[in-house]
């Protein structure tokens, strides 16, 4: 197993679940920013050939719908957007046979190198968050839409794995902007670097920054007793934190035995989309 990786900067996302409406603006922004081909076109293509289409969609940010499982007036719902956790101890990095994914850059973003990946999908088997998706088919851009590719992210070919990278290109732009302004690129101001999803969210549910920098809002946000991370017990050390004032939401961040205050029978399953 790879050792625990520690950097001076730790880019982290803090998602306030109590503010997520499930509107999908983050997913839409992510899809456009990262040159992801329109997925409905992809699905139609597979259907027309008679291939199974379940879970073949490319999406880096998935919104899960959580429920407290109660009925009537006590029922409550929450939405949970899930990008790549950029784990401090990634289960994917240690297993990639070609080092196509690594955690070796200041800031801690787990990279995914498309020209290196040969599509063995071992990393997908190891990730419990389902953050990684595979290009089962060629990306299909309807005629004219390829004119709208951003310069930010290369278009991936069939047969490679891809995942959220916290809009790494935006970090590069922010660092360049800092250099041009004569500032320290290793000490970006709060908000100078924001992934597309965090920027788009109308209700401001997604905060982003360096948790090791006291000038960044997320530095304090993660100290809240209402902050939690998904599946912390497994030891992945995610860099995505969630905040909720609701007890039942926090309890669904990890697996708990009944004796630990968990629900009898364990997880109650949530509604998955797509």
């Amino acid at each position: 197993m790879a050792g625990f990786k520690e950097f001076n900067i730790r880019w982290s996302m803090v998602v306030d679940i109590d503010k997520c409406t499930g509107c999908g603006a983050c997913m839409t922004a992510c899809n456009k920013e990262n040159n992801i081909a329109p997925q409905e076109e992809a699905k139609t293509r597979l259907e027309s050939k008679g291939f199974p289409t379940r879970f073949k969609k490319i999406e880096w940010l998935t919104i899960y719908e959580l429920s407290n499982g109660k009925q009537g007036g006590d029922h409550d719902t929450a939405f949970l957007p899930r990008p790549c956790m950029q784990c401090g101890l990634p289960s994917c990095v240690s297993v990639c046979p070609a080092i196509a994914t690594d955690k070796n850059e200041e800031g801690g973003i787990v990279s995914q190198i498309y020209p290196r990946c040969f599509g063995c999908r071992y990393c997908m088997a190891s990730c419990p968050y389902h953050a990684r998706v595979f290009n089962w088919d060629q990306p299909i851009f309807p005629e004219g839409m390829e004119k709208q590719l951003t310069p930010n992210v290369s278009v991936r070919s069939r047969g490679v794995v891809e995942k959220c990278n916290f809009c790494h290109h935006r970090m590069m732009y922010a660092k360049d902007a800092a250099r041009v302004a004569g500032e320290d690129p290793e000490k970006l101001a709060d908000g100078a670097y924001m992934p597309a999803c965090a920027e788009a969210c109308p209700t401001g549910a997604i905060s982003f920054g360096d948790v090791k920098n006291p000038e960044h809002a997320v530095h304090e946000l993660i100290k809240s007793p209402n902050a939690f991370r998904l599946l912390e017990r497994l030891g992945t050390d995610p860099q995505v934190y969630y905040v909720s004032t609701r007890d039942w939401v926090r309890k669904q961040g990890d697996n708990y035995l009944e004796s630990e205050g968990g629900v009898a029978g364990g997880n109650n399953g949530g509604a998955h989309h797509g």
Partner: protein
Amino acid sequence: MDRALWPEGVERCSFGKFLLWLGFIGIFLAAGAYEAVMILLPDGLARTALDNYFGFGLWITFDLGIIALGAGAFFTGLLKYILDIKELEKIVNLTVIVGFICYSGAMLVLALDVGQPLRSWFGFWHPNVHSMLTEVMFCISCYLMVLILEFIPNILENRQLNKIPILHNIAHNFHYVMPLIAGLGAFLSTFHQGSLGGMYGVLFARPYILRDGFFIWPWTFFLFVISAVASGPCFSVLVVKFMELITGKELVDFKVKKLMCRIGGTMLALYLFFKFLDTWAWATDVLPRSGLTWDQMFNDALGYGEWLLWAELFLCGVIPAILLLTPRFRNIPGLLYLGAILNCTGIVINRYVFTVQALAIPVMPFDEWYSYTPNWAEWGPSIMIIAYGFLILSLAYRYLPVFPQETQLNPISAPAAPAPVEPQDVEGEPETA
């Protein structure tokens, strides 16, 4: 028509019949090859039923299964060449061929399974020393080369090829170095069989397959090696028996079969001892510390029920161990083969649950169970590999001296006997099967 190519002193069916047989195999080869080509060229893996939840599916199960079952090659080789158990020389050629088929078949399926086959060599050029899969890639590739080296002398012993002096000498020299090659093969095999298990055991984010271990090796590393050597010899015996049924000849005498199965049974018992311990440790430590319970690991409605585990451990574990270890049962051919079949089935179940069930189980509390059923795009190439195995074995059986005992067990009556001879009683009861 091709009688000149047959080994000394054996009879084979007519060439026409053989071509028909090859044609029959060819149907399955072609059907699978069509799917493979469609995947490699126009359609990609989108053609399959694999998806983002089930990145591993039938092919990985199939690969792990046939690699485990092909372990008869290295283990028999180890026992024959290093530990010098002479009896095994009667079957070692066959185990090498089975091993060759299993490993080359697995490599072919893997080339299909990865998204970018042209980049497969990146695993060698940019190896990740922390990854079990890197280890697997290196060792399987090297071991396949070893198997080829072990197979070559058998090929060169084809009656016609053997007449060529240089080839005869090469074959002869190979036999000299065979213990070295066998030892190398055993070393490589132990590691990659283990690493295949290690691949699962290190996934600390998948509590179903996560295991603690010794230093960098999770317990699954050792369990996979032992289960492979438990099932490998038995599989080789089953292959021989199947060939005997098809050809109507006795190829290996029952004593050797019993010996192989006894070896398998012994290793199976050893495996089960550790497997029970491991399962208990997993259930009482790994699961609870991940916040999960035993019941959460199974889903009967989707086909991932507890019954699979009990089938693996008891029906296909304890029972075949008893059958294969108890001389009384082992002497009954039917029970011997039943034991071997159950043994191999149990190992395949193990590979299946580690690959597919592991991915079906949700880890995030708000995630769900999903089931996976392979489609024809996946079955086709798998059946193609099985047909490929039939092809290799058919060619090897027809043209190569695979079975040293064949002539002795299947005497060919000489044409036009000079005078009628009184039938004589044979002393003792020959052991036939």
